[in-house]
């Protein structure tokens, strides 16, 4: 069992140092080896359990209600301009 920790961390948008990769690699392989014991279980015809209690169609009344005011929602923003979150440029060539 070999996990490409660098690749998976990239998928998770997590930058890892080489030291972290070296520590996590054997730990994760050990955990994965452990959890693979579920492959022994015969699950033919068994339905998956998604939640602690299966509920369907949990509807609520479709009424308009006030949401968080913009000022409140922006209060924890690391950077903002006016009523918007400020981010580095995403689209190449766009005005930033």
């Amino acid at each position: 069992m070999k996990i490409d920790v660098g690749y998976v961390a990239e998928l998770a948008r997590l930058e890892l140092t080489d030291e972290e990769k070296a520590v996590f690699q054997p730990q994760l392989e050990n955990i994965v080896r452990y959890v693979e014991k579920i492959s022994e279980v015969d699950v033919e015809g068994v339905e998956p359990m998604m939640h602690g209690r299966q509920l369907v169609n949990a509807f609520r009344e479709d009424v308009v209600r006030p949401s968080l005011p913009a000022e409140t929602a922006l209060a924890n923003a690391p950077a903002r301009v006016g009523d918007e979150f400020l981010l580095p440029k995403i689209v190449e060539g766009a005005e930033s």
Partner: protein
Amino acid sequence: MELYELGIKATRDGLEKGEFTSADLVKSLAARFREKNAEIGAYLTFDEEQALALAAENPKAVPIAVKDLINVRGQPCTCGSKILQGYVSPYDATVIRNMKSKGFIPCGRVNMDEFAMGSSTENSALGVTRNPYDTSRVPGGSSGGSAAAVGGNMCIAALGTDTGGSIRQPASFCNCVGVKPSYGRVSRYGVTAFASSLDQVGPMTKSVEDAAILLGAIAGHDEMDGTTPRDPVPDYEAAIAGATLKGVKLGLPKEYFGVEGMDPEVRRITEEAVAKCEAAGAELVEVSLPHTGYAMAVYYIIAPAEASANLARFDGVRYGHRSAASRDVYSLYTKSRAEGFGPEVKRRIIMGTYVLSSGYYDSYYGRAQKVRTLIKRDFDEAFAKCDAIVAPCAPTPAFRFGENQDPLTMYLNDLYTIPSSLAGVCASSVPAGFTSEGHLPVGVQFVCGGFEEAKLLRVSKAFEEL
């Protein structure tokens, strides 16, 4: 007797009789905080001024310590993580709104393993919490701050959360009562998500009666959480009146008592607890939970998978830490998360991302969900033969700091609590005794079927009185 030593019932009675006010309680707790927190570290913050303002609005309210992942408007909510340092909640979680309407106020933020991932509170990035019964040992986790605050008489009662044992194991380590409600009994709205199909908020208290009162105050349907059914909330306080073990069928899962790794003192205390129940009139029944041996594996697929998705929201965009070193949006994500998360959180995010990644989904997450169905069926079949299951809570008493270095060894702490979490049923931890050497507390676990909290509390209460 100091006010901070009281539990919910005694506090509420005193408030009713006008013997003291909510403000008096807050002041007593604040003094206790100043005296004790440097040693125990149960609290991350205790804002006396804010608590007094809430007490002034509601002079008959009982103050409750809140695990630092439950949002209280105007208070910090760090989840024990550097990534949320400085964050201030914009709204109240439903459990907070509910308890405020039932005569409680939030009072202080208690420590926890970062994002509830851990069994010792050693994973908190923001402070060390020590076991009040032996400060060289951990308080358990992830609700270690809640347990230390209750066990160390630093609060009247506390709220914790339990995903795979995070209320029950620390309750056992710190000599308090802890109740993990059935999945869906308590709203998760405003509670920072770890593993959404497992997380539940529950009471951690000085007595079963207090747990019944606090659970009754927070439970119920919430239209902001689609997994909370409309089933009415029974009067738990009334339900425990005259509780007895006479004629109660107690199930002993043979798989739990056969395993290696159970500390001999835990085994002795659990067996004595079972014998006491029998002497009090309970009928012992052997039950079998044949898929127990797979529960840990199922949990360590499902919980990290759900965590990896839930923690994607911490990206440095709208709140939380943003890396000063980021150059573009990609590095803003990767560097903010690298700087903000601690090692256990990173490990679980990677584990979760791995089991959900292309080509592996069916063999890990998909398969784990099917085995989870089989674990649930084990419990259904066991509860056809008994009223409640009795089991150890944790395989050992509180261990020393740094004792469990290997992640997989640490995970084994939840051996007895994870199966019932996966099944979505309710369970409690009730103090059962102390180890002969070291005098460390050990709790016993009771488990009942889904939405059978009234029965669970009755059994727990009857045991507590033995």
